[in-house]
């Protein structure tokens, strides 16, 4: 079976509150769909096998590694990425806290951490340090040693 | 007189002690001085009238950026070392 026998699939999905119809190859990941088809590059690829969390997005209230989801699975789903966190009123409290606490250095893992942390605070407004570390275990950061990230999430929860 | 510390391998080739004395108002002349004293030593340090790229000259604890034209007024010691990078 060669490439051209596989046809693109039309899907209807909602990304950061915006409904859209897109055409995707059935074999590409949601990560690639977001970055290459939709053109939203805020979601990052670090490993493409579910071990770094840089591509974390929120689907219908649950965080997932978008590299382990097919683009076609986005059909009928509500997807939130880092691009959807800030509002016309300003940054999300987590984004503000990350800036104030210097919780990012190179910043490549930051979108994933923000999307993960938002899901935590949506479910548990006042998480303990251990709970924060547990929840963020699926997100790798190589620059900060996590210290300031944990502090920022705590700050945003206060 | 200026105390000059040459790389181990250079010392070995010319069978020199850790320190040798030399003089010169700039680095080029100092190396010429050494080359007269120890013929052939110059080519261990200089290439195409420049310090060999992998060699740096540390003058009283400070690495010179000027190379051979570096003036040597009341200098007490010079070290010729391999230049080193970082991450």
């Amino acid at each position, binding site marked *: 079976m060669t490439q051209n*026998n*596989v046809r693109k699939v039309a899907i209807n999905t909602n990304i950061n509150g915006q409904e859209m119809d897109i055409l995707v190859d059935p074999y590409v990941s949601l990560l690639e769909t977001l970055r290459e088809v939709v053109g939203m590059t805020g979601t990052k690829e670090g490993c493409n096998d579910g071990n770094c969390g840089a591509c974390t997005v929120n689907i219908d209230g649950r965080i997932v*590694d978008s590299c382990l989801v097919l683009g076609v699975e986005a059909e009928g789903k509500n997807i939130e990425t880092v691009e959807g966190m800030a509002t016309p009123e300003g940054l999300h409290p987590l984004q503000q806290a990350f800036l104030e606490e210097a919780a990012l250095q190179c910043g490549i893992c930051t979108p994933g951490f923000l999307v993960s942390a938002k899901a935590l605070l949506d479910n548990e407004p006042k998480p303990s340090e251990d709970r924060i570390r547990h929840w963020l275990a699926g997100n790798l950061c190589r620059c900060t040693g996590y210290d300031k990230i944990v502090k920022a999430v705590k700050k945003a929860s206060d | 007189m200026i105390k000059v510390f040459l790389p181990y391998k250079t010392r070995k080739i010319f069978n020199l002690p850790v320190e040798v004395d030399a003089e010169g108002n700039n680095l080029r002349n100092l190396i010429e001085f050494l080359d007269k004293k120890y013929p052939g030593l110059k080519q261990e340090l200089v290439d195409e009238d420049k310090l060999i790229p992998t060699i740096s000259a540390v003058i009283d604890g400070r690495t010179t950026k000027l190379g051979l034209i570096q003036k040597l007024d009341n200098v007490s010691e010079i070290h010729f070392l391999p230049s080193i990078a970082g991450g």
Partner: protein
Amino acid sequence: MHPFDYYDPKTVDEAVEILKKFGDKAKCLAGGTDVLVQTRGERYELDAIVDIKKIPELTSLEWTEDYLVFGAATPCYVLYEDPKVCEAFPGIIDSASLIGGIQIQSRASLGGNLCNASPSADGICSLIVHEAECVIAGPNGVREIPVEDMCVGPGKNALSNGEFLVSIKIPLKNSTFSASYERFIPRNEMDIAVAAVASSISLENGKVASCRIALAAVGPTPIFAEEASKMLIGKEPTEENIKNASSKAKEIATPISDMRGTVEHRKDLIEVLTRRTLSKAVERVGV
């Protein structure tokens, strides 16, 4: 990666049809946490991915008179966020709550874990010690097999052409039963078990009425350590007896040395983890 098409059947029969048509050129997609990585890694060349999550049975969870029945594609979080399941099967929850991180648990399922048949799978040993059963649909209808018969080799399961795992049945137990699962990993999350053990136990007037011990990452498949389990039956769950069963489990383990651990370390770990999980199970029964 070889390009493949996407199918999302709405019924079991539809799924069986597609799987039969493509044979080994098709794979089921539940959470995708293994199958997509393996496909990209060219472990197989697929023409079709069959997303089974849109089949109602595959994600439903129900309590019958004798069983907890949940769909093979039920994500881990559904289990550990269900108070009734946590109450009834803490051993299952031990597994469901430590597969990958939160992102993985949103997608990964015990059914997928089972079909993937990895020797180090975190979910399989717990299912074994709960005497869980697999409900399999295929061209010749539905059949059931015990969980311990599902894995036939590293990455090889007992499903034949056109078959797929529909649901998992866990027999209900009374309060004298409990179980526990513990693994050893160098980090504290996001890791593959170097060695792991699940133990279940039921007590009747102070003596062990039933016991099952299963070992992971110390053989080509998860191992039901039957001999070790038997050693405790009819005896009191004393430290001594538990110790003996644990050293038996260590004997049964046949690990290899690889990047994740050595034979010696894995055998040592099996003994320790068997002791810990048995004690934990007894503690959970609470007598």
